[in-house]
């Protein structure tokens, strides 16, 4: 298997403005439509090594989620190339889908269904044996602190933190070799946040999973990530290890944080949830 888990080369994505494919561009006229164009990603290139936890750090609207959607085959770039373990996400979509899974900021579930029903549905989609999956689901969910009696209850009765843990369990169930975590801890209480972070570390250590983590939580990025790319207005403005990034900033006697790094690189403060 290739040692490069993820290769992104000059990925560009623009929304609105018609481009070459919007029906609206023809109806409204190109000039009016083009005024509304938003560049979500602008020539983004990066490489994630196998087994790495790679962080994408940026404020809301910086292009983090668009990047994750491009990798997870949910969007098609206007330009550029994306490869997952050597497989092109557009030309070899089916192969890529079998290697990845994604946890998004909002736990996307059938909320009337129970965690077990949702996860069995996921297991069947990923070609897992349902009987074996049932045992595995109980094991993973209880490991994440979800009581066994809650596993059969509708998800809508669970807190957001619990739902997010079920989302992590669902992603882990398919044993992805590239796990895409799109702000997985946003909005969680400190305890749930710690549980999720500990589980991510465990997955990465025990199962050789590569993790692409987007976050605007500086502490989380600092503690979890081997390397971090700072993204602003769709462009990568810096990429290094957390220590490497901090070393770029003069410290004037105080300990430099990633917040300082971000402010120095972009002139902005990151929005905390």
């Amino acid at each position, binding site marked *: 298997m290739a040692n490069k888990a993820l290769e992104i080369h000059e990925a560009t994505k623009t*929304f609105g403005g018609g*481009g070459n*494919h*919007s029906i609206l561009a023809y109806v409204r006229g190109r000039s009016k439509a083009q005024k509304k164009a938003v560049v979500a990603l602008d020539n983004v290139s990066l490489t994630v090594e196998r087994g790495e936890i790679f962080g994408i750090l940026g404020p809301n609207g910086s292009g983090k989620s*668009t990047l994750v*959607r491009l990798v*997870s*085959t*949910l*969007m*098609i770039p206007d330009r550029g190339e994306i490869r997952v373990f050597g497989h092109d996400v557009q030309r070899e979509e*089916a192969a890529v*889908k*079998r290697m*990845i*899974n*994604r946890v*998004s900021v*909002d736990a*996307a*579930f*059938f*909320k*009337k*269904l129970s965690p077990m*029903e949702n996860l*069995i*549905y*996921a297991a*069947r*989609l*990923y*070609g897992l044996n349902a009987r074996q999956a049932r045992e595995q689901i109980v094991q993973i969910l209880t490991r994440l602190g979800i009581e066994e009696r809650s596993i059969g209850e*509708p998800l809508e009765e669970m807190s957001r933190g619990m739902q997010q843990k079920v989302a992590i369990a669902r992603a882990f169930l398919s044993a992805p070799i590239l796990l895409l975590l799109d702000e997985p801890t946003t909005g969680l209480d400190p305890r749930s946040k710690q549980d999720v972070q500990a589980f991510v570390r465990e997955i990465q250590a025990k199962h050789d999973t590569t993790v692409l983590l987007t976050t605007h939580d500086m502490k989380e990025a600092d503690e979890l990530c081997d390397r971090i790319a700072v993204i602003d207005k769709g462009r990568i403005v810096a990429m290094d290890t957390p220590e490497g990034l901090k070393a770029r900033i003069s410290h004037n006697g105080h300990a430099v944080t990633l917040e300082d790094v971000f402010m120095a690189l972009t002139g902005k403060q990151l929005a905390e949830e």
Partner: protein
Amino acid sequence: MTLMTIANTGRNIWRETQASYAFVERNFNLMKRYWGWEAVWLAYSIASALSITYIGAGMEQISGASVDTNYLVLYLLIGTLLWRYLSIVFDAISEMIAWERWEGTVEYTFMAPVSRVTHMIGQTIFSLVWGLFFTGVIFLVVALFFDLNLEEANLLGGAAVLIASSVSFVGFGIMAAVLPLLFPERGAQMTNVVQAILLLISGVYYPITVLPRWMQVIARGSPATYALEAMRAAMLTNAAWAELLPDLALLMAMGLVTIPAGAWIFSRAERYAKRTGRLKRTG
């Protein structure tokens, strides 16, 4: 073909079959959780079927003329039951994206390693099983209220029409499913408009010959028109297989054209949605 290739093909078919079943099982689980809605919808459908059928029972009194009440009751009952069944099939398929948007799971399903055809097959199996069960219950309840005389019916012919009409409606449902994919906010309503037009022009409660000529022309493009004509011929006049065959062939042909065409249109629409970022919008 080597043994390895055969084994791989077998594994792939098994995996896709299992994935298809995922949609069937998920939908039945959702039915269980939304049982209150389903019960209300069933009660409404029974009341609606009875109301329409009673028009036939009361026609002699309404018009003051002598009519074949049994024929009229059966005529309306066939229309209401077949339309209910076809509507369920059409809804379940055409709203497969709308449901996912409403629940917020559309991205998860589209990211899973299953082909869209597998997704559609699962949704179709569910719609056929659920449609037959739902319509069957309505028929059993309505039969308690009327002395239905089916001695003249070609029941096997009727069953064949049901199968052929299902095939033709699946293709139309797939084509309509494109609307919620392309128009997150209004797509689901658009599918209802399509359904309402089919109801108007297909002769569900009346022969299409009573419609204006231009509507009759459009009616000939609706599979429901042929399904209803054939079903009535089978159930009311005991039409022989030879008489049913042209409509059966046409319904199957419509399915054979519209299913692959619908799947192709859907794949293009999916690509367009991915280019323009429309999958992420919840509508």
